């Protein structure tokens, strides 16, 4: 693949991942109570953290998504998304392993099903790959620039 195409391909992934996070955050920011119910259903976080996280996480997703799109603090934004998706993947994976059926609340809210949870888990693995690619590509770029 030529350098030109490689660069555009990379930018495409940054923009797509950023846009997905802005969308996911904006869907949740309107309904913090449903978000809190979703978080509570996982049974992972202590009660005292549920509402602050339900309020803060969508804003965090929007901020990281916007930064990844506009390119300001892009590497940090990619790491933020990588860590967030890793946390979501672990949360859904643990719920699947524990046999509990929960609504991940990732892109809105609805009745949970096991099938939907497996789809969410698979989708998170793809996002995890895209976020890891974004962060490590940007980190490698910086290291290469410093060496030259």
């Amino acid at each position, binding site marked *: 693949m030529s350098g030109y195409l490689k660069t555009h391909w990379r930018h495409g992934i940054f923009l797509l991942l950023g846009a997905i996070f802005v969308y996911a955050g904006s869907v949740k920011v309107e309904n*913090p*109570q449903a978000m*809190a*119910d979703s978080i*509570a259903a996982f049974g992972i976080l202590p*009660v*005292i953290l*549920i*509402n*602050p996280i*339900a*309020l*803060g*996480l*969508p*804003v*965090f997703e929007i*901020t*990281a998504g916007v*930064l990844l799109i506009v390119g300001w*603090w892009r*590497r*940090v*934004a990619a*790491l*933020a998304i990588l*860590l967030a998706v890793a946390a979501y993947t672990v949360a859904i994976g643990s719920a699947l392993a524990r046999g509990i*059926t929960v609504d991940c609340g990732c892109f809105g809210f*609805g*009745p*949970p*099903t096991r099938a939907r949870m497996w789809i969410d888990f698979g989708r998170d693995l793809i996002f995890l790959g895209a976020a890891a690619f974004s*962060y490590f590509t940007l*980190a490698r770029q*910086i*290291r290469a620039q410093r060496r030259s």
Partner: protein
Amino acid sequence: MFVRDLGGVAAIFAISMLASAALNRVSGRPMALIYQSPEQRLSAELSRLVDTPPIYPSEVPTIELAEFRKQVENASALILDARSASFYEQAHVPGALNLARDEFAHDYQALKDRLDTFRDKPIVVYCTGGSCRDSRLVAAALISLGFSDVKVFAGGWDEWTQAGLPTETAKK
């Protein structure tokens, strides 16, 4: 570099938490700092109407689609939609009224005249379907308030629409 990036992530997280806390404070309906389950929130709503009555969600009888459909078509029961207003306004079972679980006290007051005529008559509550609990909670709350013939259509909105049955769109 990784540690510095982690510091950046922590900064974004901290700013997001502070910004969201500030937004929550100025919003029309700020969320409490400590999480309350749907049951606790409904109890709080109920306590605005009467002295904190007990709720026994597991005791609410349920009906199947065939019986629910008959009641809707014959208008032989008061049908209540326990989902939030935004879902109700998108579409609902024909003739259903919206008694949302999270707006229980407000909706109950708004529907009080109509509800009072059904104190001893059949009432059926539904929510999304699947494992949604709102219909059971609202039905239990109505039983707590003295309504004697309250049932839940457990299949809910999902089963109704999957069966291709008619729907209605209307504002609350």
